[in-house]
């Protein structure tokens, strides 16, 4: 149960049940869709960006608890950030869920609330779930129109 509780932390379960910013943005400046063929998770991320600042970000889709909570918490973490900051956070988040920052408390503190995803690193097959929203976000910011897949 130890590893499980670490994976399915209360915060994650809460965001899964009541995802924040789970809506469509009309006339977004950019959007992209992502798909995880392994479990069928599908997500679309919408963004309103002006002056390189993320004014609004939201998502729609269906997925497992990890991917839904990750998308929900991503939107909260990124509102008001610059695009460059967002990409930096993605880099740190990716390091966290792949276990690269294990034992590095300052790296985890840097991520704020997103640090709850640290438990994912013990479940390698779930890394794709946790990072799907982020990959999709990056694709939207890059202006790519192709659906991202995690394969």
């Amino acid at each position, binding site marked *: *149960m130890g*590893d*499980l509780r670490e*994976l*399915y932390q209360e915060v994650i*379960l809460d965001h899964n*049940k009541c995802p924040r910013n789970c809506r469509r943005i009309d006339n977004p400046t950019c959007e992209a869709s992502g798909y995880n063929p*392994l*479990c*069928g*998770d*599908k997500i679309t991320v919408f963004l309103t960006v002006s002056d390189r600042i993320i004014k609004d970000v939201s998502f729609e889709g*269906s*997925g*497992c*608890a*990890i991917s*839904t909570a990750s998308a929900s918490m991503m939107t909260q973490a990124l509102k008001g950030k610059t695009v460059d900051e967002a990409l930096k956070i993605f880099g740190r988040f990716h390091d966290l869920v792949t276990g690269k920052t294990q034992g590095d408390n300052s790296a985890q503190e840097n991520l704020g609330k997103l640090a709850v995803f640290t438990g994912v690193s013990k*479940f390698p*097959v*779930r890394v794709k*779930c946790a990072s799907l929203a982020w990959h999709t976000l990056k694709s939207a910011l890059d202006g790519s129109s192709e659906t991202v897949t995690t394969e």
Partner: protein
Amino acid sequence: MSAGLTPAATPSGADRIVPVRSFDVEAIRRDFPILASTVNGKPLVYLDNAATSQKPRPVIETIMRYYAAENANIHRGVHWLSELATAKHEAARVKVQHFINAAAAREIIFVRGATEAINLVAQSWGRANLRPGDEILVTGMEHHSNIVPWQIVCEATGAILRAAPFSDRGQLLLGEFDRMLTGKTRLVAVTHVSNALGTINPVHRIVQAAHDRGALALIDGCQAIPHMPVDVRELDCDFYVFSGHKVFGPTGIGALYGKEKLLDAMPPYQGGGDMIKSVSFEKTTYNDLPYKFEAGTPHIAGAIGLGAALDYIQDIGMRRINEYENQLLTRATNAISEIPGVRIIGTPPCKASLISFVIDGIHPHDIGTILDQEGIAIRTGHHCAQPVMERLGVPATARASFAFYNTHQEADALVRAIRKVIEVFN
């Protein structure tokens, strides 16, 4: 839910743990070394048999012995070892023949698996026989491997692929099927047992209907062969395909059964060594059946291992296996049906020992992770049957699939673990 669900021929009640007459599951389990493993500190409960099955010692030892003492290329050596390997390989073909009661060993083509078998028929028979406007009829519950090869050959020939629908319970709608089976239908390709729902299709009736309309019938037997007796002559199907790894044999080997007359008339699928009688730049003569369809050095160890697997389950007896598994299915089905918030996907009257399910508000992927922590291996996802998921409006399911080495205790462990999943999420 699933009121009235009565798996085929199951006389036993839910809470009777009376084992099938002299079915010594503990002794059987000792034949499967992997079943003694622990996963995440818990005894392995392997319920992913529809994806692939575990291998008994006789299969493992047969393969070891082959490589340790019998290995040589076949059909092309005058030396002793080559003759031995050839004899073993051909003996395995006879085992497959007898297992499905084919008329002759030359009606058994060794292939990599069901996927290759279906591609072989689609490319060889399909390209030679399909004309624009001809139709191939499948069902909505096919594995991708019984859809995509037909799409490819339809694209090449102008033929049309059609899919007969199934009910909300996962039962093929025979009326619809009959309506879609027309004079244009050249081939019907239907799964014997659905890997996503567990449905046992009335394949005997389907083959007859196809023949009445002048169409051929191919049966995908992947999920039937490990669970029930199959007699291709009684079915009168034209082709029957299955994979060795799902029937306790090695990966990379499978069989295509085809009626001799049909196989004889079909052009080769791949060219190379062994499939020819003579080669010159002016004229090449193809070999006889079954070798015409077996180009190149085959998976010799795989075929011999598959033969050992079929011997093993035939010793136990397919009827007894079927009877025992039906007990497991009934027990697990009844217990899972009682858990609030859990819905079984696929509740047709005739079902193999496989349970697809979803839990309200919990994604199957999360169910899989939590069960894995309990040492329970199940499959989650679309099971290579995306049209089934779409039809039933679920993105994915969790699927527990049983084999004859699973126990009543393991079925109970599954039920407890499902309850735990709900606990974690509440």
